[in-house]
């Protein structure tokens, strides 16, 4: 965990309002793990004041990638960065997915910008496990399949792939998938994670999700990002420090 200023290599438009920022940061690239995140100060001015948390999207040699859309002032400023601009990064933060335990197929389930951590997951698992990716969004514009393989898509309005939720899509394929041992990795809106948890618990499938919560610091001092623990109701866990990755059995979503 450290603070560093790293230069932008290039900004890539992946699809409508979805950007990829490539940053040269050997210090971060050498230590970060899939689904760990970075807290980025987009401006040294008083507004926007707080850092913005971003999951690392991919790592390639000494470069890291961030995936985002323009959602507010912070991401608007970030989208305006160009080659050579320095990015103030605090990280790596939190705990990543556990990728190397005993299973045959990694089942990726993502909704909207929840796709962000999975290009790195896909890269890390590429030679080691079979990968199946289920990617959803409200419309085709929100379905982000960048950097993933063996992709099945779903959209609420049917403009991309299966018409319905990504969990419904997963459900339709589960019997086939369960012929081998599987582990599910999820990231997306809370409503999706909730449905995914219910499904995986019912199906008795191991599932880790990367959770999201508004936070200020990203490393445990602001106490701003509580998540209810199923093991101890007397005390919250913190998304930033205890997560952002949790086994779905351990948290209330």
């Amino acid at each position: 965990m450290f603070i560093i200023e790293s230069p932008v290599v290039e900004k890539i438009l992946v699809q409508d309002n979805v950007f990829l920022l490539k940053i040269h940061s050997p210090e971060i690239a050498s230590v970060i793990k899939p689904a760990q995140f970075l807290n980025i100060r987009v401006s040294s001015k008083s507004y926007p004041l707080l850092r913005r948390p971003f999951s690392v999207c991919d790592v390639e040699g000494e470069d890291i990638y961030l995936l985002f859309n323009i959602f507010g002032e912070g991401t608007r400023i970030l989208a305006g960065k160009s080659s050579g601009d320095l990015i103030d990064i605090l990280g790596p933060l939190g705990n990543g997915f556990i990728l190397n335990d005993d299973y045959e197929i990694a089942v990726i389930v993502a909704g909207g910008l929840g796709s962000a951590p999975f290009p790195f997951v896909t890269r890390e698992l590429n030679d080691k496990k079979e990968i199946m990716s289920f990617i959803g969004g409200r419309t085709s514009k929100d379905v982000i399949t960048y950097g993933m393989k063996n992709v099945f898509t779903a959209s609420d309005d049917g403009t991309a792939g299966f018409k319905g939720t990504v969990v419904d899509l997963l459900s339709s394929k589960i019997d086939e998938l369960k012929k081998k041992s599987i582990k599910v990795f999820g990231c997306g809106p809370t409503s999706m994670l909730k449905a995914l948890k219910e499904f995986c618990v019912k199906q008795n499938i191991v599932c880790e999700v990367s959770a999201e919560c508004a936070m200020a610091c990203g490393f445990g001092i602001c106490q701003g990002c509580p998540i209810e623990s199923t093991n101890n109701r007397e005390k919250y866990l913190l998304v930033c420090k205890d997560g952002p990755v949790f086994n779905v059995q351990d948290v209330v979503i």
Partner: protein
Amino acid sequence: MSKVDLSVKIGNLFLRNPIMLASGTVGYGSEISEFTDLNSIGGIITKSLSLKPRKGNPPQRIVETPAGMLNSIGLANVGVEEFIKSKIPFLNKFDVPLICNIAASSVDEYVECTKILTSEETIKAFEINVSCPNVKEGGLQFGNDVKAVGKVTEKVRAATSKPIIIKLSPNVSYISEFAEVVKKEGGDAVSAINTLVGTTFDINTHKPKIFNINGGLSGPAIKPIALAKVLEISRKVDIPVIGTGGIMNWEDVIEFIIVGSSAVQIGTLNFIDPAAPGKIVKEIEDYCLQNGITKISDLTASYLINE
């Protein structure tokens, strides 16, 4: 040896420099120690401690606002017993004055917490939080009531011989009345200010953006208010003031000292740049060198006001 005397005395509390880390913005010290050498700063103030552990408020606890943030953590903390058992050993490794912030929902609880903690040698002083806007009981119900603040000060004074600092609420008409009663009842200093009560709503859902509806506003947005409150106390009451509210850089620190602060607390900035406090110590020393100031305490209340 430094050419500038940055040291500050607040009652019997000796600080090597006036830069303190504000309660609720440094946890119990371990995380921020990775960014700022705790031995280089003036003092560290713990997250508010209560007699029993507190779970705190459900999410959403934090929302950003223009040049500031609202928080409604709800005094989540490990409780005094667990603090002594698991947090003090880490803090013992550093040579930095440890000030325990105490929050409670009754006068008796303030006293009980103080009595338990005062025998811990590592703890050099207490900051009494009578101004948390984020809990139903205690907090502001004391902070808005001059008599209650007087009572808490009097009873905590009787419970410890260590310096006590009362953290005052800005959500009052005349903060100096509160500082006056703290002085009268034997308090050693006041911290000014705690956060301001604020809220923000989502225009699509018509719901508050934080669970608790109201939160405490901090950050550079509140700095002019904090400066005015410090100045008010400084002009009316003879008591050391620890200035806090929206400090983002060394210039802000100097400004707080000029309007009457003996020391300052850095808060929200720790979330954004946890390495900043250490840098600011060096920068205020440079300022003093460049301006021929040999003792930083000479700057306190050095305001020039035409009347």
